[in-house]
């Protein structure tokens, strides 16, 4: 192993030699190296977060036929730095009657819950933080911490809008957690492991990307991830036309900035998990074998594409009503995800030991059949709904005529 073939692990090994050379115990040296690694990764995530603010503003501007930030630096790329300076220099207002401790903890927890997800992201074959064997459960648990931060913000602000926003957010987040967990179960069944690293490894070297094996699970994961993020069309928690800004209405300055940074990084991280679970992670047809950093770049590009899709949905689809949102989840997404799970489990066992391409083809066809049946049921239902509504519409029209 030389510096050029694997810089990160080379530096880690070099530091380990230096520390043990100073007479430190190997356990302490290891802990210091892990701490340094965590610092580097968190700093990288925060730098990326600053860059994401620029991307988000530029992309929303293009969707709305505007230019976006273009004054500070080339293409306005230094705009987020100006924003950060402004946020830091703003006065920090705590509303009267707020629960001070909880009020201050909420933005911290909001960003921490997102940063915690970065601990398990495998950036490349040799660049990964913790290879947990329960990584998918960890993903769900860290997401639940994000929910908690929103309840804390809404409850402690002493504001009715904030409280309403928090209620709505909790309703949507806990509901959409069910299809998300079921969608996470499907890569687990195919791989036989909850480790994100093993899921990535199973999608290369004679395996196929899981979005071919489980296209419906990919879509279910994407929808529930958007709901979990609280982004449009599920952004009832901060519906600015009804409840002003929802749970972060009373937050000013850097505390608001932390919520905003947490939301953007969360969206990017879910793009990353979409890439890892269904689109091969850092793998791209053998290109990742050239160099670990190439693998990391492939992963970041895939995560950015996932993030772009989430933005695309956000700026295209209007907000939906809360009863529609909960109905969509409990009457459509949850039953569908459970059916897909049953089909995947039975076929996975029936096809055990068969060729990879046979396995992928049968799984794909099974998904197509389930998807088609679902659409047929929905069509029949909407036809019956229209039939039931038509006489009402006619009688209303006649009444108006008379």
């Amino acid at each position: 192993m030389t510096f050029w073939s694997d810089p990160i692990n080379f530096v880690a090994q070099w530091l380990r030699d230096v520390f043990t050379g100073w007479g430190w115990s190997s356990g302490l040296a290891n802990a210091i190296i892990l701490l340094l690694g965590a610092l580097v990764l968190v700093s990288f995530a925060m730098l990326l977060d600053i860059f994401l603010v620029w991307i988000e503003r530029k992309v929303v501007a293009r969707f709305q036929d505007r230019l976006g930030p273009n004054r500070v630096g080339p293409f306005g790329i230094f705009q987020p730095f100006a924003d950060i300076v402004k946020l830091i220099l703003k006065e920090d207002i705590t509303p009267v009657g707020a629960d001070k401790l909880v009020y201050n903890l909420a933005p911290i927890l909001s960003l921490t819950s997102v940063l915690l997800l970065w601990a398990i992201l495998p950036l490349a074959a040799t660049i990964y933080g913790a290879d947990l064997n329960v990584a998918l459960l960890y993903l769900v648990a860290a997401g639940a911490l994000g929910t908690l931060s929103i309840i804390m913000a809404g409850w402690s602000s002493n504001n009715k809008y904030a409280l309403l926003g928090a209620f709505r957010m909790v309703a949507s987040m806990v509901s959409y957690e069910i299809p998300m967990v079921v969608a996470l179960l499907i890569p687990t069944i195919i791989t036989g492991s909850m480790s994100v690293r093993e899921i990535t490894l199973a999608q290369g070297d004679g395996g196929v990307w899981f979005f071919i094996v489980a296209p419906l699970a990919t879509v279910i994961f994407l929808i529930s991830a958007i709901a979990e993020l609280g982004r449009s069309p599920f952004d009832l928690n901060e519906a600015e036309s009804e409840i002003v800004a929802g749970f972060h209405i009373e937050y000013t300055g850097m505390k608001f900035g932390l919520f905003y940074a947490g939301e953007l990084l969360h969206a990017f991280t879910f793009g990353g998990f979409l890439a890892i679970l269904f689109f091969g992670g850092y793998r791209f047809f053998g290109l990742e074998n050239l160099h670990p950093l190439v693998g990391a770049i492939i992963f970041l590009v895939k995560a950015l594409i996932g993030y772009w899709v989430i933005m695309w949905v956000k700026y295209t689809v209007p907000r939906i009503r809360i009863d529609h949102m909960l109905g969509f989840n409990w009457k459509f997404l949850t039953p569908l995800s459970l059916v897909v799970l049953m089909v995947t489990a039975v076929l996975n066992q029936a096809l055990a030991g068969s060729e990879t391409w046979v396995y992928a083809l049968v799984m794909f066809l099974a998904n197509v059949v389930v998807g088609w049946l679902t659409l047929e049921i929905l069509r029949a239902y909407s036809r019956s709904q229209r039939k039931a509504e038509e006489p009402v519409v006619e009688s209303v029209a006649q009444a108006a005529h008379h």
Partner: protein
Amino acid sequence: MQSEWLYIGLFLLVGIFIPVAAIVISALLGPKKPNPIKQSTYECGMETVGVNWVQFKAPYYIFALIFLIFDVETVFLFPWAIALNQSQPGVLGVFVAVEGVIFILILLAGLVYAWRKGALEWM
């Protein structure tokens, strides 16, 4: 495995340190000129009426209950999903999957019951 969880713990410390540092720096650099109007609760220019911790709609509670049942049962599904690949191929392997399917069908029966009872309507 120990080192992995040590890394998670250290990551948690760093992850808490960064936002705390941002808030502390902001508190040190920002102005502090509080007054009663500025610190009052935001309400579109009106005076706030009544208590701010209001009662909430009952359906939120019902949806939380349904979620709780499903969440506990999906936790049972994870060990099953992992053991699935390690089971014997052939008829026995399919039988393991069918056992899981029966469990999921019971789950779905609970969902249909809640649906028929009208618990999924927003009233």
